[in-house]
């Protein structure tokens, strides 16, 4: 009895410690962000390596919170680094695509092998989204940065609303698969480790899903963000794929969508290794820690913190674009 109480207390203690740590982490991100924003005019006084280290550390922390909150690193990266670092938004978006791409590539093989990403479900969506991401990237690089900032701010605020309101369904009810998904055999089986059983799934409303992926790809290319925040609701809530398959397939789709947009940024000269590489490495190291903390951290708490962080970054992008908080 005593041992049970003691173990419960220990568990609660660990949970509390982890969540307090996370709270401090979020507060530091806010503080560092605001501090960096206030000091932008004197950015040139800081040596290059100071910015590179600051970028690496920021991405490391973003990587930690990205996994438990269920959002891609790219969604956090672009508004936060774009808002609070002295880099031009073109280079931030180029790096953002690579951050999202590298994370998706690292996760892709195990998701495919475990059946959580499905090639037959992903490929038709990825083809359309890749093509539209090229258009998004081209338009994003052709229009003035202030307009992209305003659009980014509005989109981030939209994502915040989506994250706060959208429901998720672990195993959505799908009556009869539509003709297109039947013809393409967009169905499958995966082993659900939590339930220790095989789950059969199929999808419906495929034509509408395909249409929405055209828009999602466009936004991914335009803002240089991964698009997991939009992929998952479309696959899960609209098309009826199980939540785990939706999340896994969404990540896999990004390997194709973000790579086509990344080529446009690379060819245009909008990728600076000094910004992109520390971001990719920092985010991936952070995500490794985040994945380990997944069992300790309370997902709902992390999610609320990330929503607050995004709300702040979205407002910052909007005000920066409007010239109010430069």
């Amino acid at each position: 009895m005593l041992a049970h109480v003691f173990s419960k207390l220990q568990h609660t203690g660990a949970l509390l410690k982890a969540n307090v740590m996370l709270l401090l982490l979020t507060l530091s991100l806010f503080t560092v962000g605001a501090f960096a924003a206030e000091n932008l005019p004197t950015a040139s006084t800081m040596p290059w390596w100071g910015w590179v280290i600051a970028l690496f550390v920021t991405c490391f922390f973003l990587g930690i919170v990205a996994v438990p909150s269920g959002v891609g690193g790219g969604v956090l990266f672009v508004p936060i680094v774009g808002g609070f670092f002295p880099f031009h938004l073109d280079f931030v978006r180029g790096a953002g695509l690579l951050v999202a791409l590298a994370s998706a590539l690292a996760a892709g093989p195990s998701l495919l092998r475990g059946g959580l990403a499905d090639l037959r479900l992903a490929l038709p969506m990825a083809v359309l989204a890749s093509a539209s991401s090229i258009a998004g990237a081209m338009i994003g690089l052709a229009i003035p940065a202030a307009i992209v900032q305003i659009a980014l701010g509005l989109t981030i605020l939209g994502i915040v609303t989506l994250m706060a309101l959208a429901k998720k369904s672990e195993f959505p009810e799908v009556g009869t698969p539509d003709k297109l998904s039947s013809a393409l055999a967009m169905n499958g089986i995966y082993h659900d480790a939590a339930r220790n059983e095989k789950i059969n799934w199929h999808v419906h409303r495929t034509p509408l899903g395909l249409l929405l992926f055209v828009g999602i790809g466009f936004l991914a290319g335009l803002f240089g963000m991964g698009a997991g925040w939009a992929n998952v609701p479309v696959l899960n809530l609209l098309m009826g794929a199980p939540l785990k398959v939706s999340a896994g397939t969404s990540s896999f789709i990004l390997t194709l969508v973000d790579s086509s947009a990344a080529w446009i940024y690379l060819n245009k000269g909008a990728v600076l290794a000094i910004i992109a590489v520390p971001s990719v490495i920092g985010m991936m190291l952070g995500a490794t820690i985040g994945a380990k903390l997944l069992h300790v951290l309370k997902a709902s708490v992390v999610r609320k913190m990330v929503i607050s962080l995004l709300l702040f970054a979205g407002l910052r992008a909007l005000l920066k674009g409007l010239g109010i908080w430069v």
Partner: protein
Amino acid sequence: MNDKTSFISTEQQRYATWLSWGSRSGLAVLIVTFLGYVLSGLPARIPLEQMPTVWSLSTHDYLQKTGAPTGWHWLSLLGQGDFASLLGIAWLSGCSLLCLLAVMPIYAKRKDWVFVGLCVVALFVQLLAASGILTVGH
């Protein structure tokens, strides 16, 4: 193949294998070339100390000020640290091409022509994006 993965299709297994090799080697190239750039003092077109004066410029202004290449011209500058690092980035961006090529024979053998076609279109889109023929500008 254990019971938990027995229902994963052959093409999906093959795609995963190729993606795993592609992404791991790409990350290794990325890290090695970047460390060579910032630590070993490889010559760079734009010295690291001058980066803070150009990274706040728009791409258009940055290209004008530095004369940095666009398209695939960076390949001829691989001896310079800042462009050697782009090799890993291009590798990561291109590794899906090989995965798509690797699964096409499986679909073709099964006469799954729709998915052969989808792979061809996906390859075309990736190659079009990579080609550098799509130009944009402020």
